[in-house]
């Protein structure tokens, strides 16, 4: 398949848009339809928990492309258009509105959905997760109420999104408790010294941080509104807003139902190809099989962008493997964390620079092999680490 006439992309997020534009960039001249379940076109999600939630920028400033810009590129964006099924045999995508679209190549870029906790009170009003603009707007509204009425909020999960929201809430002087089930923050990604450093940072900013936290239920008032979090040890934490930030699940339902190989995500190779020759997948919805035979799930902008490019190439019958070292960032207070590489399997850590100065990097090693570098307000080390890891990876 070298030149399909019709490409349909399901999911108008970072990966979907990237695939569409990369196709045009490669000279693809056929039809491109970008289907998005949300009401608006593609936008940047990372600022939702950072500058947007802090009120520093307007929603329009998150937009990735104006409708005009998409039209000029011949990308037909359909918003409020949810795909509900794939007919593999007929090569059709069925839509929630009853319509259907035929494809020569299909790209799934459906992203991920927040995982929710299965405990009493999970459906109370004011128990919210953050993924979309709509979620962010609901959270901002409730945060404003909390600020006004001096009510505290609780963040469940000491991962990136939870901690970013906590930091933003502190800027608004809202009392915040962060509940983390593990013994340290960001345990899966950061070196132990950095977990401790972040714990101190948040405590210094007035966050009530509870590690090894066990939650029993979300307390709900007679009005159906959340009013607190009940802990296993009997403690009740009052709350006018609860943010659940305990990770995401890949949106692989369409692929699963169509019989594509899935394993905690749509299984793709390094070139974004799925188990069906006419279907490709990119971004948070994927699980990439690595040369070592393991599955790698990444949830990051870089991954969405790189796999989007790979998917476009694969649609055109070309191989463009995603081989670059993964990278990620997080903004909390005035601290920028930049991570290069994957630290899984590290057994030794080295710190360069002075943690007390607020600018330093932690190097993760397995034996002599450099696996990853976490940089705190240390952009130069980060960029150099990325180059170094890219060099070693190839």
């Amino acid at each position, binding site marked *: 398949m070298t030149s399909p006439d019709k490409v349909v992309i399901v999911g108008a997020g970072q990966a979907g848009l990237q695939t569409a534009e990369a196709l045009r960039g490669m000279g693809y001249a056929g039809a491109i339809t970008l289907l998005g379940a949300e009401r608006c076109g593609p936008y*940047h*999600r*990372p*600022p939702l928990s*950072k*500058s947007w939630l802090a009120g520093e*920028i*307007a929603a*329009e*400033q*998150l*937009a*990735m*492309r*104006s409708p*005009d*810009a*998409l039209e*000029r*590129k011949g990308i037909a964006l359909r918003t409020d258009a949810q795909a509900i099924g794939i007919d593999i045999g007929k090569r059709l995508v069925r839509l929630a509105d009853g319509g259907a679209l035929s494809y020569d190549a299909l790209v799934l870029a459906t992203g991920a959905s927040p995982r929710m906790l299965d405990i009493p009170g999970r459906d109370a009003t004011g128990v919210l997760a953050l993924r979309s603009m709509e979620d962010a707007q609901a959270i901002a509204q409730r945060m404003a109420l909390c600020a006004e009425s001096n009510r505290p909020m609780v963040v469940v999960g000491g991962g990136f999104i939870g901690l970013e929201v906590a930091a933003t809430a502190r800027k608004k002087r809202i009392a915040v408790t962060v509940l983390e089930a593990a013994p340290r923050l960001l345990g899966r990604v950061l070196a132990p010294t950095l977990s401790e450093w972040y714990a101190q940072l948040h405590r210094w900013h007035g966050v009530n941080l509870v590690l090894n936290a066990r939650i029993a239920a979300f307390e709900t008032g007679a009005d159906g509104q959340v009013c607190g979090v009940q802990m296993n040890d009997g403690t009740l934490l009052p709350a006018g807003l609860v943010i659940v930030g305990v990770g995401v699940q890949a949106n692989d339902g369409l692929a699963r139902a169509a019989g594509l190989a899935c394993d905690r995500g749509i299984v793709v190779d390094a070139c974004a190809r799925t188990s069906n020759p006419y279907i490709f997948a990119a971004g948070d919805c994927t699980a990439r099989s690595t040369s070592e035979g393991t599955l790698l799930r990444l949830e990051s*902008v*870089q991954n969405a*962008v790189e796999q989007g490019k790979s998917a476009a190439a694969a649609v055109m019958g070309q191989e463009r493997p995603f081989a670059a070292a993964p990278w990620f*960032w997080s*903004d909390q207070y005035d601290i*920028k964390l*930049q991570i290069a590489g994957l630290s899984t399997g590290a057994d030794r850590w080295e710190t360069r620079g002075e943690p007390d100065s607020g600018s330093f990097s932690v190097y993760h090693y397995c034996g002599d092999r450099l696996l990853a570098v976490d940089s705190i*307000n*240390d*952009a*130069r080390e980060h*960029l*150099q680490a990325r*180059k170094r890891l890219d060099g070693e990876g190839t």
Partner: protein
Amino acid sequence: MTTITYVEAHGQAVTVDVADGWSLMQGAVANGVEGILGECGGSCACATCHCYVDEARIGELPPPANNELDMLEDAAAPRRSNSRLACQVKVHSAMAGLIVHLPDRQQ
């Protein structure tokens, strides 16, 4: 609205109106100007919004902060004295007519 002209790497000039308070990056990506990626959404984290501001007017802009300077050190295209990260430059009316040149690569 303030008029900004972006000159793409191959010489094509694109003039757009950018809302005040938006960054040079937001003005460019929303309008589909080629040559600015802005992958991090303006967090000063990706260095894919590198641009060269009209030399004659670079002095009119507020100077870059340290993290911007650090990111510029290792941007994909060569750094020059008029290099900026477009996401860190907020547009306002005094910048009317500013010309911004884009490098031939961002990664």
